[in-house]
């Protein structure tokens, strides 16, 4: 089975899952799709979105009120960049998020800084800028809901969400 037909089947499966955005690949934690990561292909297939999410890692985390990329985050993004450059049928929206400590407006702007930091890094590693878009959700979409640092640390994130299409 070719890669393309595989992704087409995958898209059909997502549509059946009654999602309003069938071209979007995201695991459950991202808040977009329900039904589990299995829909995004097998994580053992290095060309699959599931591999991108699980093996490479689709997200990087940030320190409080910061948008600088840690060495660990940079390593993850190196992997993302490599994957994106060898899987050119995909484009990505980088979603920036903040924890709940902060006002709604400031957190939107902070999430945008985080998403932008990821975008700039991926571009610096060779990914075409027109395949990447950014959006900030501020504190609107936490993945962890406790009001402790253990949750906040996971919510201060930028998630690279793949979608099928070569970008604009």
């Amino acid at each position: 089975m070719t890669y393309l037909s595989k992704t087409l089947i995958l898209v059909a499966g997502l549509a059946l899952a009654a999602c309003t955005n069938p071209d979007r690949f995201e695991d459950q934690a991202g808040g977009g799709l329900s039904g589990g990561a299995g829909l995004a292909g097998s994580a053992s297939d290095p060309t699959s979105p599931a591999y991108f999410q699980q093996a490479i890692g689709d997200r990087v985390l940030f320190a409080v009120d910061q948008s600088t990329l840690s060495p660990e985050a940079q390593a993850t993004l190196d992997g993302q960049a490599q994957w994106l450059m060898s899987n050119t049928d995909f484009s990505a929206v980088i979603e920036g998020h903040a924890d709940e400590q902060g006002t709604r407006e400031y957190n939107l702007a902070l999430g945008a800084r985080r998403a932008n930091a990821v975008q700039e890094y991926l571009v610096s590693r060779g990914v075409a800028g027109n395949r990447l878009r950014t959006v900030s959700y501020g504190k609107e979409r936490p993945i962890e809901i406790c009001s402790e640092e253990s949750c906040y640390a996971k919510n201060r994130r930028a998630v690279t969400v793949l979608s099928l299409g070569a970008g604009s």
Partner: protein
Amino acid sequence: MMRFLLTLVAAMTLWVFPATAQQGGPLRLEITEGVIEPLPVAVPDFVADTPAAQDYARNIARVIAADLTGTGLFREIPAEAHISRIASFDSPVQFADWRAINAQALVTGAVSLDGAGRLVARFRIYDVFAGQELGRGQQLVGERDGWRRIAHKVADQVYSRITGEGGYFDSRVVFVAESGPKDQRAKRLAIMDYDGANVQYLTDASAIVLAPRFSPTGDRVLYTSYETGFPRIYLLDVASVGRRALPTMEGTMAFAPRFSPDGRTVLYSLTQGGNTDLFTMDIASGASTRLTTAPSIETAPSYSPDGRQIVFESDRSGTPQLYIMGASGGEARRISFGPGRYGTPVWSPRGDLIAFTKQSKGRFHIGVMRVDGSEERLLTASFLDEGPTWAPNGRVIMFTRETQGAQGEARLYSVDITGRNLRQVPTQGGASDPSWGPLQN
């Protein structure tokens, strides 16, 4: 003359009428830091002049009493304590009976239905100890389903005749109605009376909506929606619930909109390349003008009531602080200097104060400061308070309070600018981001 004086217990300022000014002078409650003893008021059921008006006669009186006591400035003397009954609107008031129960103010009224089925309400306000009317009686006519507005208008008259300040009861609030768990929260735009009644939903829950803002006349609402997957500003007509997206540039995010005082311009934040700056947009033409160019975050802008200045939040100093600049941009001066982080400044309708959100030592506060940054006062403290909005008279602030933890939920609260009278605004479910509209006509 002492009988005109209200019992004011002064915490900071004792305000007393000069006795010479009291010749036939009106009942008056000066709202100061010191008013902590509410003024006793009696609001007997209105007289139903037609049988079909019976329920309205009672309900209108109840809403008037709720409005007045809800301010924390009035205390209602319950009906069980009343000696006199108001059997007829035009019969002389037995002042001695009201004095005996220490009612300082008395509100009487009558309600009937006219030939067209409309409600006709008449009311009078009395200074009981002076034994005379306070201002003139008035008549209000409205549709039956607008009976609460009639009550609010009467209460606004009572409030303004006794305090000398404008009322705020006949006003509405646009807000975000929230439901669902914290990580999948559904948000809808909704509008309601200031007291939580008459909720109407303006959008469905299909996209995240944030921070609606009333136009100065209350006819339109600006808000941010993720309808397209990216935050954009929308303009909604309240009467028709029709809406349109304001023009935007591809690859940008627009949010935190507010109207200019003339209602023609939108002041907002635009994020481009990760950097958030302030812009204005002429609503008619859609043309945007950049106001700031700093690499820092500039957001949450609000106009002064005369439209000449803008207060906003910026982290140009390293942490979010409040700044004021001219309406066309240019140099900004910092006005917040206390320890902590400041955000969402909103200029009061009187022009004298800035309300803000402050984050300090892991707590959130709603506070006010003078326009020059002096006399900062924190009015609330909780796990998460944010997003103040002013009552039309600049005496009360409504805001969002979110509780802690996995079951955390947002609700609306109001507080007097003295820091007293903290109250939850009744809403059916979660609620956030209130914007208090003007007094209605």
